[in-house]
């Protein structure tokens, strides 16, 4: 607890500093790279990667509020992500391509996510904690089926393609002249919208987990029985944590829809996305918020840049039995899965936990 001298930086980070020089440098580099991404890494593809990183930082951090801070393993997080994305997608596709529709869709998605999260939380009141993970898995698969079946509303398997407000369209130009060689088009504006909202949401979550409310969540994680004995109604706190985390995930989903101008079951609802989030949070470090942010960077970069490297390796091993198949670019998840298991064994606190351990 570093509550003493509350400078402006401490206030911004809610007194939760990264804790070690190396981690601080890494995070500052990340922040700088993301803040200047369209200028440092021009090109449609790399800006899209940077935007994905921003969105997944929010998504992984919101999952960390559940998994790392409260100690609940839920597998329905993509469902909330999808609710936000479908909210925006449906509003933009069915109403008009204006800001009103974006707002309406976002609010509807977030509210739906909160209601469903509270319902799941209240049901978990009655059952053993063990059942919770299984129930969330079942509910998430139900949501996936619902999204593919309600074809009129969600576009089924094909998903929805829609127009975004004029300001965010690739054809829009803010200024006639390029700035630093980069044209200020709708893509860049979309990126900065996503970046600003993501940063604000991340700082908000940092604020929440370091509030007295956040301390109660950590108390529940450490010893639920004792927290209850101290007079905290653990069920209420767990449900609130779930609702908060769901709302954040839905907001991330809304950003995802704006980025892609498309939404479908594979992008936001599939189990593969859930596995990605899990890997991000655990590899980065549960219960730190900074960890999931780093984990999101590692995973998204791996998704985009590990595969070409593996393709090269697979080609080099062409003569061997089975090895080319193991290093096939589509097997990247195999290696991340191995990394995941090793991290759970040997570094249960993830990258950030390991870095903090070595700090004095």
């Amino acid at each position, binding site marked *: 607890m570093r509550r003493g001298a509350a400078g402006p930086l401490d206030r911004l980070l809610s007194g939760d500093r990264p804790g070690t020089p190396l981690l601080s440098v890494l995070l500052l580099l990340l922040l700088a790279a993301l803040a200047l991404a369209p200028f440092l890494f021009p090109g449609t593809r790399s800006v899209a990667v940077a935007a994905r990183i921003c969105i997944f930082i929010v998504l992984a951090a919101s999952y960390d509020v559940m*998994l790392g801070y409260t*100690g609940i*393993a839920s597998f329905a997080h993509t469902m909330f992500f999808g609710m936000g994305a479908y909210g925006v997608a449906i509003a933009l596709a069915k109403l008009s391509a204006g800001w009103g529709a974006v707002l309406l869709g976002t609010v509807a998605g977030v509210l739906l996510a909160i209601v469903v999260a509270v319902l799941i939380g209240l*049901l978990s009141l*009655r*059952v*053993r*904690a*063990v*059942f919770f*993970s*299984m*129930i969330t*898995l*079942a*509910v998430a*698969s*139900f949501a996936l*089926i*619902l999204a593919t*079946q309600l074809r009129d509303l969600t576009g089924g398997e094909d998903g929805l393609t829609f127009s975004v407000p004029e300001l965010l369209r690739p054809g829009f130009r803010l200024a006639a002249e390029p700035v630093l060689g980069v044209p200020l088009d709708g893509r860049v504006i979309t990126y900065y919208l996503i970046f600003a909202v993501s940063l604000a949401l991340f700082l908000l979550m940092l604020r929440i987990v370091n509030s007295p409310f956040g301390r109660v969540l950590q108390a529940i994680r450490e010893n639920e029985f004792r927290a209850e004995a101290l007079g905290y109604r653990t069920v209420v706190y767990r449900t609130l944590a779930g609702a908060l985390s769901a709302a954040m995930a839905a907001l991330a989903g809304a950003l995802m829809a704006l980025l892609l101008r498309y939404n479908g079951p594979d992008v936001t609802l599939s*189990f593969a996305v859930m*596995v990605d989030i*899990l890997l991000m949070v*655990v590899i980065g470090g549960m219960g730190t918020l900074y960890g999931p942010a780093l984990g999101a960077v590692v995973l998204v970069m791996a998704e985009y840049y590990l595969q070409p490297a593996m393709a090269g390796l697979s080609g080099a091993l062409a003569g061997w039995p*089975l090895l080319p*198949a*193991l290093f*096939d670019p*589509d*097997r990247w*998840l*195999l290696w*991340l*899965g*191995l990394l*995941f*298991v090793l991290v*759970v*064994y040997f570094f*249960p606190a993830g990258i950030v936990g390991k870095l903090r351990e070595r700090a004095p």
Partner: protein
Amino acid sequence: MIARWLSLRAGDWAPYALLPLLVLATLPVMSFSTWLTLTVAGFAMGMMLFLMAAGLTLIFGLMQVFTFAHGAFITLGAYLAVSVFGALAGWSSATSWALNLAVLAAALAVALLASGAAGYVFERLIIRRVYGAHLRQILITMGGLIIAEQLVVAIWGANPLPLPKPASFQGSLIIAGAAIEKYRLIAVVLGLAVYAGLHLLLNRTRVGLLVRAGVENIEMVEALGYRIRRLFIGVFVTGTALAGIGGVMWGLYQELVTRSIGSEMTILIFIILIIGGLGSIGGCFTAAILVGLVTNYVGFLAPKLALGSTILLMMLVLLWRPRGLFPVGAG
């Protein structure tokens, strides 16, 4: 008398009535032949689900290990069936019951041994280090599932593989005007045999007694000097071996094997465990049939609601009996 034979407490008859009530309640909604077809189909599906779920309910109930990797062993069983049927294609396509049953038996034996062996390795390498830490169990078995699914794809390829039923198992028998697939009858026979075997093992042998005692109170069994860890290995290997033969049966039933065959079943299996009550073989058996029947009835009446209906069933059961229909032990 019957109540004593079933060792019921007063007022505890309701869960037993659920299954007959469901079967009878659907009779007026459809014609008799349709009802008979669906009921047999539901029983057959329930039996295959039971094969896959039986081991897991013991793993959860006795070992208190919350593994999410059970689906990987189902997938392994299904893919092994593809290989065995591919190697013995001549036996499978011959219209001889003896040869067809022999190839099925071979596939079941291979899946039983290989899944059991894989389960042993999994227990030694992965589960053993996380006994007692539930969150880490969930995470690490999830990682195991990812690795196993990717390995299956690396070995057998990413495309779905066809797994046609042997020649003699195809087609249906007509009984009382209802078409009943032959393969479903085979599944029912195998499921009943495994249930009977497990029932005898658990209720008539010393090992079974220890397993049941362990589900109820693990510390007491250890305090009496039994090495519960050895039982754990046995239960885990049995559970994964059963999942493997469940995968063979389910793959043949679907006639198509995909890499997600196991993880798709995992959700239904969890629903069964929750409905039946963790650690209860009888509860698992009843719940599996219940889920099989509901899936088939609803699949006929309102096809789009099939999986939704089982989730709804689970919710209703939980509101009624939060610990499942047939809870075991002190919880």
